[in-house]
């Protein structure tokens, strides 16, 4: 055993460079408009279509140490939150370039680490002001409006989106005529132009906006009245939890912030549809399914618990997705119960079992003769001998199958759900005796059936007794699929249900098989977004608002530390006694600037990906413009909030003042987003601080054959 050691950052930091080049591959996944990629295996000519960061990294060969750390980080984010991976990947790239830039400028590594880390902390504290509380969204669920009613909004883009047709009201009026005839169930729409949620409008209009922000006093008053009577419920924000808007707020770091013309509003979200629209990030087809699933769960919970119940929790573990490739998109739907595909040979069986409650047994593992529970070690050295000459008539499997059937007949069981594989032979035999066996059932589905039918999950069929059998399961065909479509699907979809089962199946269909995976991924992303928003009872104002606040906050911090020197940042270093503490002031603006550049890059890529800017440079100029405005305004968060409230002014002027807040906003989830930032920075800083790679266990031959430069041996 030999060990090699390589110094990896003598002149240039290889690790950081690797990180930024890995991250480059995922930049088109940022934002609501994602371009798919084909990944082609040169050797076996197989290709996959991917449209998410997780799938991208799964398909890439990241065997280098840094690549592995990156995919570990992305996997961890995905496993914990199922969202935020594109943000993570992009920021890893942006910040590793930022860290490298700092290195080039001669900033000591330890200082980059502490300033970046504390800089991000400070951002995270700052963005609390853009949190929107989410409360009682299910209280209004009985209203007639549904997600589909909101479709006509252009919700696909974030507030940074650029509407090209912003050429004046005439145009808008014209657009309206196209929009109006569509069936709208939203009560705030009375044939008025609907403005899309754009926080920042194209440059051409910015000046005009500044003018319109000086709205007549009366209007502003009514706006204030509206906010006041709503009583702010933001408790975490130091900007928003007061009703007196002209108050001067003294920030902890000493500078006074005046809430001037920018009127901060108490945003809150207590409408489920609004929340869903905001969280859909352009993927309304998936979000529509999520909302339908949530509605079903809610109704189920209400009927189960009666009216006096615990607060409803949206539980995505009780959602199951069933993918049916080959069917047209329009077949996607949400149904209560469990939908799965079984072979067409059981058609007659299903017909017979239909319309009657049947009894069910749940098997935790495989349903085969040889299956033994986990942790059971089979002895290899046992030999069975025959003592008499009489040969047994049946093979041992047949004996086993007969025993299984006996048990099933004894307890009158017509349905067996197994989490593992099921012996083909047994399925056949059971079909003959009018019993349906389904294998490879998801664990959550099993759990749902256990709860609803009273069945107990067992390891072996021999354990079955009367207490373990569940009752009242119904089997039906899922829906009548047109005959010409049936052929394209191998097998048929059936639906299993019991009274009050807490399980919702989302059927995802796509005529293009290659899309199936990404469709499923997208559904789960939307579902987890909604789940986290409801769980945390808060969301961020989205569409780049939080990132923009981070950017302007860091910019202000950097400027402050230039002018104020060392006082502002004492305690930013672990090790306050080192010389680094005293030279912190010198380098702090540089590092903060680099960190801010990362945000800048993020925002301009987001806009470039989303809207129709011809170059990233244009997008970047646009951000720069607003950044300047935000900084000049003295309080970026108020600036952002006022830009948000300007969105409403269009409707405002039209006289529907009481419907303020019905404009679909874009929202983001809080903790998963912040964790993605932290993970990204952690990874960058981890790699930044690494100076060598130690490879253990290399054989002599391997070293000789691949002698890479710069290795030292021990």
């Amino acid at each position, binding site marked *: 055993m030999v060990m090699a050691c390589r110094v990896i950052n003598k002149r240039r930091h290889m690790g950081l460079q690797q990180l930024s080049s890995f991250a480059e591959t995922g930049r088109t996944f940022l934002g609501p408009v994602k371009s798919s990629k084909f990944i082609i295996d040169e050797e076996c000519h197989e290709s996959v279509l991917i449209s998410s960061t997780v799938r991208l990294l799964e398909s890439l060969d990241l065997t280098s140490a840094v690549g592995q750390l990156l995919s570990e*980080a992305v996997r961890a984010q995905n496993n914990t939150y199922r969202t935020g991976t594109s943000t993570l990947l992009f920021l890893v790239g942006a910040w590793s370039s930022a860290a490298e830039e700092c290195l080039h400028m001669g900033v000591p590594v330890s200082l980059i680490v502490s300033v970046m880390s504390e800089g991000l902390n400070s951002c995270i504290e700052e963005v609390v002001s853009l949190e929107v509380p989410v409360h009682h969204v299910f209280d209004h669920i009985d209203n007639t409006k549904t997600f589909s009613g909101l479709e006509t909004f252009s919700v696909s883009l974030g507030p940074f989106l650029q509407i090209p047709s912003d050429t004046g009201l005439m145009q808008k009026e014209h657009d309206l005529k196209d929009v109006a005839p569509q069936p709208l169930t939203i009560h705030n729409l009375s044939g008025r132009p609907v403005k899309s949620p754009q926080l920042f409008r194209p440059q051409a209009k910015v000046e005009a906006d500044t003018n319109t922000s000086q709205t007549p006093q009366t209007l502003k008053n009514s706006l204030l009245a509206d906010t006041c009577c709503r009583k702010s419920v933001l408790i975490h924000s130091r900007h928003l939890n007061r009703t007196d808007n002209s108050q001067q707020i003294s920030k902890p770091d000493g500078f006074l912030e005046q809430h001037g013309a920018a009127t901060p509003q108490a945003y809150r979200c207590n409408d489920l549809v609004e929340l869903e629209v905001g969280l859909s990030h352009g993927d309304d087809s998936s979000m529509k399914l999520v909302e339908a699933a949530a509605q079903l769960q809610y109704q189920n919970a209400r009927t189960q618990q009666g009216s006096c119940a615990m607060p409803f929790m949206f539980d995505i573990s009780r959602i199951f997705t069933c993918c049916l490739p080959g069917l047209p998109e329009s077949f996607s739907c949400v149904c209560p119960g469990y939908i799965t595909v079984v072979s067409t040979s059981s058609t007659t069986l299903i017909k017979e079992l239909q319309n009657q409650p049947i009894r069910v047994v749940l098997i935790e593992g495989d349903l085969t003769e040889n299956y033994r529970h986990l942790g059971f070690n089979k002895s290899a050295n046992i030999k*069975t001998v025959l003592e008499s000459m009489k040969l047994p008539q049946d093979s041992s499997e047949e004996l086993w199958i007969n025993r299984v059937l006996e048990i099933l007949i004894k307890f009158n069981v017509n349905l067996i759900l197994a989490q593992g594989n099921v012996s083909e032979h047994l399925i056949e035999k059971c079909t003959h005796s009018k019993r349906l066996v389904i294998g490879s059932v998801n664990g959550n589905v099993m759990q749902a059936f256990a709860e609803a039918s009273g069945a107990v999950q067992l390891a072996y069929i021999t354990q079955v007794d009367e207490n373990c059998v569940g009752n009242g399961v119904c089997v039906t065909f899922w829906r009548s699929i047109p005959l010409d479509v049936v052929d394209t699907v191998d097998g048929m979809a059936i639906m299993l249900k019991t009274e009050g089962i807490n399980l919702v199946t989302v059927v995802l269909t796509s005529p293009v098989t290659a899309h199936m995976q990404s469709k499923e991924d997208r559904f789960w992303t939307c579902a987890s977004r909604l789940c986290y928003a409801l769980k945390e009872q808060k969301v961020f104002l989205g569409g780049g608002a939080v990132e923009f606040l981070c950017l302007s906050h860091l910019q202000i911090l950097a400027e402050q530390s230039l002018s104020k020197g060392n006082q502002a940042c004492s305690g930013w270093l672990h090790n306050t006694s080192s010389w680094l503490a005293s030279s912190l002031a010198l380098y702090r603006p540089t590092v903060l600037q680099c960190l801010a550049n990362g945000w800048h890059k993020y925002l301009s890529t987001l806009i470039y990906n989303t809207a129709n800017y011809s170059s990233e440079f244009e997008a970047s100029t646009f951000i720069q413009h607003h950044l300047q405005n935000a900084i000049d305004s003295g309080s970026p968060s108020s600036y952002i909030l006022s830009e948000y409230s300007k969105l409403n002014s269009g409707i405002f002027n039209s006289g529907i003042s009481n419907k303020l807040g019905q404009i679909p906003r874009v929202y983001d989830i809080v903790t998963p987003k912040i964790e993605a930032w932290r993970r990204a920075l952690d990874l960058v800083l981890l790699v930044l601080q690494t100076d060598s790679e130690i490879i*253990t266990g290399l054989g002599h031959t391997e070293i000789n054959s691949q002698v890479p430069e710069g290795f030292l041996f021990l």
Partner: protein
Amino acid sequence: MSRLEAKKPSLCKSEPLTSERVRATLSVLKGIVTSCYGPSGRLKQLHNGLGGCVCTTSQSSALLANLSVTHPILKILTTAMQNHVSCFSDCGLFTAILCCNLIENVQRIGLTPTTVMKLNKHLLRLCISYLKSEVCGCRIPVDFSSTQILLCLVRSILTSKPACMLTRKEIDHVSALILRTFLLTIPENTEDHVILGKSIIVPLKGQRVIDSTVLPGILIEMSEIQFVKLLPVKKPGSLKVALFCASLSGDLSDTGEGTVVVSYGVSLENAVLDQLLNLGRQLVSDHVDLVMCQKVIHPSLKQFLSMHHVIAIDRVGVALMEPLSKVTGTRPIGSLGSVSPSTYGSVKDWCTAKFGFKHFFHLIPNEATVCSLLLCNRSDTAWDELKVTCQTALHVLQLTLKEPSVLLGGGCTETHLAAYIRHKTCNEPESILKDEGCTQTELQLITEAFCSALESLAGSLEHDGGEILTDLKYGHFWSVQADSPSIVNWSNLLSRCGCGLRNSQEELSWSFLRSTCHPFAPQTCLPHEAAGSANNLTLDCFTAKLNGLQVAVETANLILDLSYVIEDKN
């Protein structure tokens, strides 16, 4: 047919240390450990180059466990370090760097090994007796009635491991948790001997560090299905517990070699299952409420037990067996035969808990000196590092309980000690010369080698090109930006010394650490109030550092004394 092969002659190398290859590998090793040292130390990515998991670390224990060195001299070194780390957890890098420095410095002066060894040992004795003496200027007695010093100690350990990726807030949180964990393992009523309990670190990867917490009692992870099944069965009052270390999975335990012949129709599996069910019946009739098994329990036995309202928890794992048997007072049962009632124990209560995505069975013992530290961190590699760091910190607290002293950290102890030794050998050389029978020059050379080894050890804390100063009153460690103007008002440029005890405004004078300044007597006897007032000190474990110092000097002596390496080539 056997074939005889002539034995190869053994290979004998003289003066191994003079070989270029040994020097080169030693310097690589020194480079690795030196660059890892301290809070701003650089990290190493350890992996096998074949897609195995990547460990990012700067800790001696992780490094040494993964380093595979070939040369016997390096082996002596790494083995000595590993032994030290396994006994004391902390100060592994300190030991390794000091040892390498000593070897390097002594080689340069070219004295005979006997003289070197004798004098090194003498200087070591001087160090130890000074560090242990009442007048020692870099040792602070620990007052257990306040948490201040202990928190500083834990925080220093956490700060010195950058691969944990903790922010300041997280460091404060984890430090407090570690201290609380430690306190939970101290029994409330003690007579003569204090027997410390145990803390179990429960992994919860992927969550925020801030979500880490500590709970008295034992947490056993289990599946969601088990968790849901457990919810309805809740009985008040204490429970009778049986704990099995034998597998109850129903397989045939070790049939040995050869073949077991069974006649057709006989099922050994069923026979074992019958035996298990008999056991179950006995447990039920003995009114056992809770059955725990290190390994797997057969599903049928589980079903039987749950039918009789007995909670069955399996796959507890070997790590939890000892604490479980301790807190419940059970004797682990190793056979499926009849169970003696004396092996049963009891617990006060239990409940279920959910953290992150994991479900736990939480056992609350009668007398709790066992606690579970639920440790979270975002990434696997950072979690691994944090886990080892927490273990180190807990061990250090135990060592501190035994020997209630801490040393000043941040390089101050090393520079102070070097100043003390320099002064001692310069001003009172007579006794040493007489005892050891060496010349004044030899003593001077070795003292210089020894002290500069200590000083460059302290200097290894600096990784960003700063320079090290020492003050001429206390002999503490001060760092300053490189290329500072030479005539400068130091007191304005510096702020605090390495350990944080001294302020630059105390009318001190400074000199560069490696410049040849006149030996001075560092002020001894730490004033009491100094220790009490400062709440942001960097501190080191006294016992671990003292032992590290000894191991380093003795290992260096051993290596310097090697004159032949004989290798058996067969």
